[in-house]
């Protein structure tokens, strides 16, 4: 092939060279520096995480000097009553908050896609997504004042406040993938169900809901991760003894940093990797 092009190059130049140049034009890979930028981006994304994981196995109590392999920090984390307590609280809170948020978001998504357009629909869309646009610090302060008033009135100081706050900002994260799924779903499927004598509830139960599951799972997982991660709002809303894992870790950082923190972070990293992998396998199977 190369030989042939070489031999016929003068005659072929006009016919062959043109389409080849056109094909190259819009390929981003040929832009100068593209490879370097890509490598830099991946390095910045993953190098810190990699170092965090590596030093969680450090025998020495240092983040900078390697003192040999050891699982002692994992052992320390498991034996730390406080770490166990805040981890369980964080997981429980994330589970409950994203569970409620996903339910509400599913209903909201149905309400904004499966009805005739009504006046103020865009307004409602904006209202649902408000937590995405308002700075967390503003929401945090607002919730602090609002909940303080309720606390004074009722005397209730339980986990309800954290659940309410986390649910509120999980809703848009759960809403977006569910709504996206509903919008791409062929509406004639639901018509077909109704045509085949399904009541509106049966059509939802047998057709819409099963097809919506990947969206709902994605929404739930997004909400779960966001709740697990929330520092600012939790810090403002929590009462005494209601530390979640992130606020606990933040508190620990103010004192001394030991690789115990690395071990906890690594465990949570492993957990989220498991969830994401499970989700991928689940949705791929469903086709």
């Amino acid at each position, binding site marked *: 092939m190369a030989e042939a092009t070489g031999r016929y190059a003068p005659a072929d130049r006009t016919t062959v060279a043109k389409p080849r140049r056109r094909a190259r034009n819009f390929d981003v890979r040929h832009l100068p520096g593209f490879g370097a930028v890509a490598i830099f981006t991946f390095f910045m994304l993953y190098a810190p995480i990699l170092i965090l994981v590596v030093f969680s196995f450090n025998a020495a109590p240092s983040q900078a000097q390697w003192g040999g392999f050891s699982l002692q920090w994992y052992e320390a984390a498991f034996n730390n009553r406080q770490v166990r307590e805040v981890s369980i609280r964080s997981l429980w809170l994330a589970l409950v908050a994203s569970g409620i948020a996903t339910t509400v978001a599913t209903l909201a998504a149905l309400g904004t896609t499966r009805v005739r357009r009504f006046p103020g629909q865009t307004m409602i869309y904006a209202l649902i997504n408000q937590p995405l646009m308002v700075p967390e610090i503003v929401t945090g302060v607002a919730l602090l004042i609002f909940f303080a008033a309720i606390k004074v009135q009722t005397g209730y100081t339980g986990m309800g406040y954290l659940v309410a706050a986390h649910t509120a900002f999980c809703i848009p994260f759960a809403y977006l993938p569910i709504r996206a799924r509903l919008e791409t779903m062929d509406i004639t499927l639901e018509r*077909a*169900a109704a*045509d*085949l*004598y*399904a009541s509106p509830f049966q059509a939802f139960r*047998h*057709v819409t809901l*099963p097809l919506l599951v990947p969206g709902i799972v994605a929404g739930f997982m997004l909400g779960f991760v966001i709740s697990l991660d929330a520092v600012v709002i939790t810090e403002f809303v929590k009462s005494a003894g209601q530390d979640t894992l992130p606020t606990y870790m933040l508190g620990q950082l103010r004192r001394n940093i030991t690789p115990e923190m690395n071990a906890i972070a690594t465990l949570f990293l492993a957990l989220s990797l498991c969830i994401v992998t499970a989700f991928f396998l689940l949705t791929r199977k469903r086709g």
Partner: protein
Amino acid sequence: MKDTRNSPEIEIAGLSKVFGAGASAFTALSDIDLTIAQGEFFTLLGPSGCGKTTLLRVIAGFEQPSDGSLRINAQEVAGKGPNARPVNTVFQNYALFPHMSVAQNIGFGLKMLGRARSEIDATVDEMLALVQMAHLADRKPAEISGGQQQRVALARALAPRPRVLLLDEPLSALDLKLRKGMQSELKRLQGETGITFVFVTHDQEEALTMSDRIAVMSEGRILQTGTPHEIYHRPRERFVADFIGDTNFLEVEVAEADGAAAQVKLPGGALHSARLPGGLRPGAGARVTVVIRPEQAQLVAPGQGVLAATVEKSVFFGTDTHVHLHLEGGAPFILRRQNTGAMPEPDPGSAVGLALAEGALQVVGD
């Protein structure tokens, strides 16, 4: 089977459908009157946007009429949802449930009706056999071909034994060969089940070959209802004649009119009888449009026949040849003749005469 063909299955009276309100209101259907008999293969034919699909959706219950009445088997159903009507639909894109197997798709309607498991299984097997899909019962819709999906959609809609089957351009996504096969398959299924079929298409050939009766629609109205023969040979309006088959239109003057027939003066002065559609009674001297189908004119020697013409070109189509002509006075005219091998093709530029079959002329309204 008892012959119930003449009792009405669907009765539509004064039905209209308006989308939106105020200045942006759009009338999709206006003042539809239609009766479809039991066991009939009835086709709604028209160009896209004529309202045929809207009418089908009103019958199915996906849209509610703005006005008028709609009775199925003597029961008023306007205002009822699609799940409360003895009607099933074959959708244009099939709308098979992607998460269910072929068998589960077919059994869905009966399951929703709360039938016993054993009855559902028996009917599903029967339907699978009817559309020759038994070997693919456990496949998902994404794992079978378009033609097979079409059969499943048909079986799914037939399984609950509806009184009426609605078909929304079900063949438009298939290639030509599959389409021909499905056309005869549909006719066979209709004959075997005795169910009333209401078929929507924009393909006039499909409508002519399959239907017992056709309603031609345009801009939300039914222009004409009749058998394929009536629609083809006795179009009442210019639109109907133009939409169905190739057509020649001639502007002529009425010499005398008498009841359902008239004598008209052709270009060149010859008189010829023409049929008048019901309701159209032009007086002598009126200008009217007549329709002549391309196969109802014959080439004869110059000076003979009732029309004089000049040959422009001939186009060979295998079984027949289309001869493009210019009539005396300039109007274009297409003539179709079968290639029996008896006659040579006329040379372009040569003068010819045209003879018209008795009853070839049909006056149409505009």
